[in-house]
């Protein structure tokens, strides 16, 4: 059974920017817990829910909120920082990086291209012509999809 745990919306008033944060992670998900945090924070930054300069909770605070281990949370922040999505300013805390609109568009495109590339590869491996794959994509875009 899949278990999730929602971060409590506001457990104390000292938090900034994170109060609306909504992360759900599960130890039963085969995706490692740190990766679940990375994916969800990245999605929130790219979708604009988190804005450049927004403060993020400390590693230990986030670990306590998510009921995750400190090492897991540390690794998630390290990966997000390596991706250039967040920055840690010593003594001040961790913030969403100062990404320009172009940066965000480029990152969004990279994210989507990754998924599309997988779909294309899957289609080719099943023997579909590229034109057929393109047609299927158009069908999906048009909402004309029959999964049956």
């Amino acid at each position: 059974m899949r278990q999730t745990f929602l971060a409590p919306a506001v457990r104390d008033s000292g938090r900034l920017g994170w109060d609306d944060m909504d992360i759900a992670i599960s130890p039963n998900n085969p995706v490692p817990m740190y990766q679940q945090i990375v994916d969800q924070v990245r999605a929130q930054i790219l979708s604009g829910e988190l804005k450049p300069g927004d403060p993020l909770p400390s590693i230990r605070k986030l670990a306590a909120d998510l009921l995750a281990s400190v090492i897991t949370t540390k690794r998630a922040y390290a990966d997000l920082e390596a991706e250039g999505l967040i920055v840690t300013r010593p003594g001040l805390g961790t913030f969403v990086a100062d990404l320009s609109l172009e940066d965000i568009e480029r990152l969004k495109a990279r994210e989507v291209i990754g998924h599309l590339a997988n779909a294309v590869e899957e289609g080719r491996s099943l023997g579909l012509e590229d034109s057929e794959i393109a047609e299927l994509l158009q069908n999906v875009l048009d909402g004309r999809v029959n999964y049956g």
Partner: protein
Amino acid sequence: MDDAVLQLCKISKAYPGFELKDVSFELPRGYIMGLVGPNGAGKTTIIRIMMNLARADSGQAAIFGLDNVAHETEVKRRIGYVPENHNFYDDMTAGWMARFVRQYYPTWDQNYFDALAARFEIDLGKRAGALSKGNRAKLSLALAMAHRPELLILDEPTSGLDPVVRRELLAELLDFMGDGERSVLFSTHITSDLDRVADYITIIVDGRIHDSDEKDALLEKARKDEPTASIEDIVILAARGEK
């Protein structure tokens, strides 16, 4: 490891029919370690040796870098210990138990204890013997945490508790970790508690250390073969002797 809060070095102890053999592991400061293994694997014996409630036949335990036998009083003042069976004076009230315990701890913080008791909804006027199982576990944890120890040693703290209370206790533990100066050693056979909160896992089977590593590293290794492997699966494989 330069800042190990706990270091066991080749601890051995033989009882009739049971042997703890060359147990070594380290817990770095600021992290939570789960000590897991089947019943009878030796978890409680290891903890009792750390607390100097049992003597090792050989080997050393250093806590905060100090020998735990030679510096017993100092070491114990900086530890919070929750034994497997909560030992209360059942005819006395929970509040009396707090006043009893506090006299042994110069760093006891009464405000913190009161805050914990309020958060745990423990009725301090109630006889300890009349508390529910969940409230006994919570009182035991509050008594162990109130002097703000650097190391909490918990022997099966969640055993016999319902999932709601277990979640509350785990959240409280993570809160307690605070600034990274505090550490927790947590023995349990309910490994799902550790899937979330443990930084390190030490697996003990049949009196011997099977593995001691970062939880994420252990899971990653196991999930190469089985994508949904949990700590429980790892322990079961270890107990079956499949290395």
